[in-house]
């Protein structure tokens, strides 16, 4: 069995940045395993621009952002295998994978980095009445058809869910000549970025129906239409508000879930809030020497944060290979008022760097204060004009505050609702 210092599962932006950071921190015996034909992950199909504003101060397309990191991996001669799917990871860090050259094979690592990304919630999870005709896709699948395979899945479209991928596809298909009749969002607010609402819907006069859902999909072999209806405050359709659209395609953009099947095979503790691993600030999971970063850990909206998080994981894996187990004294981070999750969930008081805590709010809150408290003391307080569920927030805990912490750290957002 071949062995490596560090094995990285998934060659998207998270895996690539982790590999580069691990290498630059002195551990160079690395193997990246990627299921698809090329490195770059989901960015290969995200041909729109808007990536890298924070990191490169430029608005790059997905493939351009990915290429900068792929070049970094190639320049360092970091080993990678594409068209190789990992089947399982054991808690003693043996990775079993399959590809057409080697069949099923097992490699072992001193450390493992999980960076498998996320997948889209499917229609099945949604329970829409009606037939199951062709022409119903997730927005990400449609994106792959149009941007990678080069053909349009339909000409006349209704989109359910106002997630960013759905908004991006509304514009993309419109520009390619399709008619997008409507985007329906069951919530009173969109889950997508404001910029995307304006530049993907308003620019093309595509109506966004808030508090609406699809109640019926019609058609026998192929979709011929949908019925949408307004929902009440319990998100139940209101009788008499139904509107019918003729269409040949329905896209679902109803959220992403971290892809953690492999994390489960190696016994990593998962968080019911993020659906990803529970991690320390260095992105180590509950299994020693197994790290996680990117969308497999928490669903990011900005790839810049993915790269930043992956660099932490890559460096930590390198330190683990060099120095072994981390000496820890642990405090937990806890969700306070209006906060739906915090990450990392555990912080080592002996950590030697500042700790950035990521969190999301569960509703739109204007003119608010972000409060980080521990044992009755306020360790951070900052004012924000607005916090929205669709955008991840951060709070930086300075390293010199860590040793004085006693008890759990609570993150809350208070303000005028």
């Amino acid at each position, binding site marked *: 069995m071949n062995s490596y210092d560090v094995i990285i599962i998934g060659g998207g932006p998270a895996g690539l940045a982790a590999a580069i950071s691990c290498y630059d921190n002195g551990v160079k015996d690395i193997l990246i395993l990627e299921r698809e034909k090329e490195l770059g992950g989901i960015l290969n199909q995200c*041909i*729109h*621009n808007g990536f890298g504003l924070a990191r490169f101060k430029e*608005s790059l*397309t*997905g*493939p*351009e952002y990915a*290429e900068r990191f792929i070049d970094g991996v190639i320049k360092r001669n970091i080993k990678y295998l594409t068209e190789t799917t990992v089947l399982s990871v054991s808690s003693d860090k043996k990775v079993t994978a399959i590809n057409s050259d080697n069949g099923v094979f097992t490699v072992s690592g001193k450390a493992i980095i999980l960076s498998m990304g996320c997948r889209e919630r499917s229609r099945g999870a949604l329970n829409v009445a009606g037939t199951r005709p062709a022409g119903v896709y997730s927005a990400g699948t449609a994106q792959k058809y*149009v*941007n*990678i*395979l*080069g053909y349009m899945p339909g000409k006349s479209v209704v989109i359910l869910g106002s997630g960013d991928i759905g908004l991006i596809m509304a514009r993309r298909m419109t*520009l*390619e000549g399709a008619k997008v009749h409507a985007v329906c969002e069951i919530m009173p607010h969109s889950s997508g*970025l*404001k*910029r995307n*609402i*304006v*530049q993907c819907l*308003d*620019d093309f006069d595509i109506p966004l129906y808030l508090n609406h859902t699809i109640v019926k999909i019609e058609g026998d072999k192929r979709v011929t239409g949908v019925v949408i209806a307004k929902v009440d405050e319990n998100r139940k359709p209101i009788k008499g508000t139904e509107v019918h659209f003729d269409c040949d395609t329905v896209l679902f953009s109803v959220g992403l879930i971290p892809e953690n099947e492999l994390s489960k095979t190696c016994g990593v503790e998962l968080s019911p809030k993020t659906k990803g691993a529970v991690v320390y600030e260095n992105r180590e999971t509950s299994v020693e020497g197994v790290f996680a970063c990117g969308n497999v850990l928490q669903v990011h909206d900005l790839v810049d944060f993915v790269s930043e998080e992956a660099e932490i994981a890559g460096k930590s894996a390198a330190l683990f290979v060099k120095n072994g187990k981390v000496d820890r004294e642990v405090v937990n981070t806890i969700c306070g008022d209006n906060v739906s999750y915090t990450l990392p969930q555990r912080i080592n008081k002996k950590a030697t760097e500042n700790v950035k805590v990521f969190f999301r709010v569960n509703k739109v809150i*204007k003119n608010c204060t972000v409060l980080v408290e521990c044992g009755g003391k306020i360790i951070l307080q900052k004012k924000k*004009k*607005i*916090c*929205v569920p*669709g*955008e991840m927030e951060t709070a930086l805990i300075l390293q010199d505050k860590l040793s004085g912490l006693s008890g759990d750290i609570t993150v809350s957002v208070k303000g005028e609702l």
Partner: protein
Amino acid sequence: MELTCVECPMGCKITVEEKGGNKEFFGYSCPRGKLYAENEVVDPKRVVTSTVKTASGEVIPVKTDKPVSKKDMYKVMQVINSITCTLPVKTGDIIKENVYGANIISAKTVK
């Protein structure tokens, strides 16, 4: 006319009123919003991203190297859809020059 400012998540609704040839703006909460609205009213511009077919039938991602007028977006798309490009290409290579004031460039290196 009503605009939504996209400069921050507040998403202020900014209204524009014509008063004796001058435009007045209402509803913005900060200077960035006013600047945004001014640009949007004069000549809103967008970068167009799409794909171009290669001779072998694959597609490669492309973009305009600078924003083009919003009103020209469909015309830019027509040009993009009429091009076939030959491989290899590098990121930044010009695929077609001077299309409504911008160049269409490759957004990926493909061998």
